[in-house]
């Protein structure tokens, strides 16, 4: 096919990638977006077999081995992606990202080998960039994979003098890069690659478990940029566009993720330089809880079939009754089944919740008594506990001696997801800890119930 046609088809693939990212940013279109992206990638891969600088150089050299290699890659990639469990997906993504970075580095190296001394300075710089960043991405991703898979400690690994080792490695990379530019040749480039691999490992080791996803996203953006750079080396616009897209969106995404988790990217990146070994030891003393944002809660609610609100004293203190009804109305309008589970002693006065909810004009029919609602939790996707605590505390069943032992509770733990809206980890009236707060299926949204609910309502409307 002609170069122009090839380029046009490539442009089409690039457009597909843009649409893919756009689609992936909204729950409704995410799946379609991914499929469009896959279509674009397929298109780009197929046409490369039908284009050559001169028509008679078709079919491609080494066609057999190339096809075989693709088959091998597919046979590895697809089953891995198919079989992996939900919880292990992040590490698989890390791994995929790493091999991508590795591939980009290899491509750059091969092209470098081919071009030899004919390469321009610009191409040389792009090559070095690809090799360095690709290798970092490769080894760094492997380490994140090991951490997430718990094949190694998830704690930040910090050894004395670590920061000097890192600084030295970095300096060597810069030095060797100059060496490559000045003298050319295979050896320096290989050394550069090895140093970069080392740097990748050193770079990720000091990152703590919670920050790993952010680092994966960062490495992903890195890989994108290496792809763009190798696109420049190969004069392939598609690679430039695709790589840049990933690099740019990945950067934004990293920032968003860090913001959502309340982390500073700077702090994570230079953690190795600033973290002291002592910090590592104190880590992990408090029991971990899963806290989420209003957006997370909104998404959980949006894709639920049935939601049960469990109001308690905190709802009354926050005077959030109107907001809770607004949320219920919104969900009902989306066709989601909403009920309020009213525990007989919720609040501080018999019928406290009734008074509140009646004020907000919640229809009496939506209020369900404990006996009525408890059997339905098993079919409930989300139990949203709003400023309640004792009335859902499993200690009432499990801890003889607790002041609430023997009291029937709302069995929210049977729901698929439990969300707590409260301000802190403080207990309720009875003053006893609630194990449910630490349950893996529980998400905590901290803050005044009214403010939290308002944020959830906004987030839900923005979906």
């Amino acid at each position: 096919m002609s170069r122009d046609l090839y380029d046009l088809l490539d442009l089409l693939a690039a457009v597909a990638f843009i649409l893919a990212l756009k689609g992936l940013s909204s729950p409704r279109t995410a799946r379609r977006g991914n499929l469009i992206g896959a279509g674009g990638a397929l298109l780009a891969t197929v046409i490369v077999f039908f284009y050559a600088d001169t028509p008679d150089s078709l079919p491609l050299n080494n066609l057999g081995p190339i096809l075989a290699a693709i088959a091998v890659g597919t046979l590895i990639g697809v089953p891995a992606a198919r079989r992996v469990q939900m919880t292990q997906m992040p590490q698989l993504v890390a791994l995929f990202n790493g091999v991508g970075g590795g591939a980009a580095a290899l491509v750059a190296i091969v092209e470098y080998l081919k071009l030899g001394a004919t390469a321009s300075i610009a191409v040389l710089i792009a090559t070095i960039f690809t090799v360095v960043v690709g290798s970092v991405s490769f080894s760094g991703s492997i380490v994140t994979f090991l951490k997430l898979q718990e094949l190694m400690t998830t704690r930040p690994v910090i050894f004395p003098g670590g920061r000097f080792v890192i600084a030295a490695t970095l300096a060597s990379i810069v030095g060797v890069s100059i060496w490559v530019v000045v003298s050319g040749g295979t050896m320096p480039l290989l050394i550069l690659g090895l140093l970069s691999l080392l740097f990748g490992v050193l770079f990720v080791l000091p990152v703590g478990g919670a920050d790993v996803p952010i680092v994966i996203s960062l490495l992903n953006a890195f890989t994108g940029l290496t792809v763009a750079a190798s696109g420049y080396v190969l004069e392939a616009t598609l690679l430039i566009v695709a790589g840049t897209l990933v690099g740019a969106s990945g950067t934004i995404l990293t920032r968003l993720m860090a913001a959502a988790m309340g982390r500073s990217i700077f702090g994570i990146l230079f953690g190795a330089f600033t973290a002291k070994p002592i910090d590592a030891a104190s880590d992990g003393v408090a029991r971990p809880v899963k806290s989420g944002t209003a957006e997370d809660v909104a998404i959980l609610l949006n894709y639920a079939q049935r939601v049960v609100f469990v109001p308690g004293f905190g709802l009354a203190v926050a005077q959030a009754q109107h907001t809770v009804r607004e949320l219920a109305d919104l969900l009902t309008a989306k066709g989601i089944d909403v009920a309020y589970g009213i525990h007989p002693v919720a609040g501080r006065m018999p019928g406290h919740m009734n008074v509140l909810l009646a004020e907000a004009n919640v229809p009496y029919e939506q209020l369900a008594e404990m006996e009525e609602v408890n059997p339905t939790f098993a079919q409930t996707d989300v139990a949203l506990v709003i400023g309640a605590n004792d009335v859902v505390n499993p200690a009432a069943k499990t801890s003889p001696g607790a002041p609430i032992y023997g009291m029937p509770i709302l069995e929210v733990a049977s729901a698929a997801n439990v969300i707590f809206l409260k301000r802190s980890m403080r207990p309720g009236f009875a003053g006893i800890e609630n194990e449910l707060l630490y349950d893996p299926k529980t998400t905590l949204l901290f803050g005044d119930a009214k403010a939290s609910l308002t944020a959830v309502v906004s987030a839900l409307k923005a979906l």
Partner: protein
Amino acid sequence: MRIAVPVETKPGEARVALVPDLAGKLIKQGLSVVIAAGAGFKSGFTDTAYQEVGVEISADDVLANADVVLSVQPLEIANLKSLKPGAVTISFLPVNSSFEILQAGADARITQFSLELIPRISRAQSMDALTSQALCAGYKAALIGAELSPRFFPLLMTAAGTVTPAQVLVLGAGVAGLQAIATAKRLGAVVSAYDVRPSSKDEVISMGASFVELELEALEGAGGYAREMTPERAAKQRELLTPYISKSDVVITTAAVPGKPAPLLITTEMMSGLKPGSVVVDLAAESGGNVAGSVAGQIVELNGVKIWGGKDVPSSLPFHASQLYAKNVVNLLNLMLDLESKQIRLDFDDEIIAASAVTHDGQIRVESAGGKK
């Protein structure tokens, strides 16, 4: 110009036609006001309070020499005769049942205004004492229903089981009915209501209650009031309402047709479906009653059902009922007051004056009472 406010003598009447606040405003306009000693006592206004704003307190007859007399109930015939000719009286005055009073007023050449005849136009709403007093009655009716009921009004889910909300049915959703709906709803009851006027469905819904739809044509009379039912329609309506009544814990009736006895909405038979402990509040008891067997001013018990018959209901909220009433009266007075000469100047081209002045210049002005208009 001298405005006089006598003591209300009708038993059970606790209101007063002028409150200190508004008396003060009249005095600031340059009028003089005299009030019978103790006239405001039952509604919580002391003589001192009147004195403070410049009202003259009189232990004697306040009517002699008065240019305008403000009262809640119509003046007695004896008192009318003691007024000077040309004097003006403003009060409730049911023309259909007060022929003698009208005649006496006409004979004494007194201009009598009947607040019942203020037309239902937006501009006249500030003088519409029927509305303001119906507001008080409606509020009270719901409170009495709650008070007499052996049940809670709201739903409460407690450790000792769930208390189900009271079912309240309001028949007649005029001013009083709507306010009864509002009050019962506030207390947490599940409220439904029925009325014959076509616009009442929206009005009931606008109070947050549900409307009882019967398969009956609507009835609309003049001036936003209802019309009287034919006996057939009345029977049919009763039949259709029966199941709704049986389901209720509290029934509040407020139906009225101006100038006619109140329609009978509930027969004794219909009440047999009520659970013991149910309550029926009949605000129309004084004008014939919406409920068979209701007696104004009494609670009749029938098979465990309490039937409360309203009597002087606004008087049980005397402070605010007087305040609202006085405002109505003063607004009407201001309409006929020439501010410069400080004299009454009646403009019979004004729809409000024309409709509500029932005697003037020796004539009875209402057709239904035998006069000409």
